[in-house]
């Protein structure tokens, strides 16, 4: 739902690195996005295509890697991954307890970019 501001941030960071590295064209950008976020890959790419027009990042392909939700069990402290969209009632596979601390799944991270 809020792909636009997030995409603006991606473009700003990419252009900053492009300038610092005297880049002529950005070919692709690798992102890590947590499964807890509701961002849709297709919309991020569409907004990016629109916002990046006329910049060195125009036409760059976004490669989005999803990071699964990982919970640290409140009972036995074991870490386990859950498919948050499918499993609405996750339980620890070690001890069966529910609930715990969110270790991963909220990422919005730019890993690297391929440039010419």
């Amino acid at each position, binding site marked *: 739902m809020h792909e636009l501001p*997030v995409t603006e941030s991606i473009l700003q960071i990419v252009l900053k*690195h492009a300038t610092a590295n005297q*880049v002529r064209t950005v070919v692709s950008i690798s992102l890590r996005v947590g499964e807890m976020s*509701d961002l849709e890959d297709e919309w991020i790419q569409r907004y990016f295509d629109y916002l990046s027009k006329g910049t060195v990042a125009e036409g760059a392909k976004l490669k989005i890697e999803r990071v699964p939700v990982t919970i640290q069990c409140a009972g036995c402290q074991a870490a386990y991954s859950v498919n948050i969209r499918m499993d609405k009632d996750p339980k620890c596979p070690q001890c069966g307890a529910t609930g715990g601390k969110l270790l991963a799944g909220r990422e919005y991270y730019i890993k690297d*970019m391929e*440039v010419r």
Partner: protein
Amino acid sequence: MMDEIRLIEVKEDILSDNKGLADRLRADLKKSRTFLMNLMSSPGAGKTTFILATLAALKSTLRIGVIEADIDSMVDAERVARAGVTAIQLRTGGFCHLDAAMVAKGLEALDLSLLDLVIIENVGNLVCPAEFDTGAVKNVMILSVPEGDDKPLKYPLMFSVCDVLIVNKIDYLPLSDFDLAAMRERVLKLNPGIKIFEVSAKNGTGIEAWTSWLVQEASAFIDR
């Protein structure tokens, strides 16, 4: 050779600018001894009525200001101002949430040396506001009884990031099939540390328990 593809390591968090600004806001608020609370809910859960009930209960205890965020209207700020409280209206112009930069603008328009507590009424939405740190010291959300007890399943992030859940319109409970125990269990699974208050902003049920928690938290932060 000119066209060879190179790899540049970026390693940057997309929301780090917002998080950095939010952390600076919290540090400034600590200095000016003002407690900032972010209130979130879906449209129609009763945010403005809940704020008015909170203001009425705390008027003689804390000096309070309100930042109202709406996509494009002034009605909420006008309601709060009629209650005799300083209210700033932020029009987000289509944005579905507030971020730290927008909240910073709202805070600039208030004289923080005269305020102990500032309440942000975020845009009515259970999705986007959950992702953006506003600089608030505590995040509070409202789930109203008519919305249904399944909302923690549909919007897990919102229920995970909040310190307090207000179950509003509790006076509707006898008229609905809302399962309070099931809702509690779902929320506590996502967020075992969350505080839950059952209130009716309209008839005043539960407001005292909520405001005494708020006064305690605000006093601890502003060191009164």
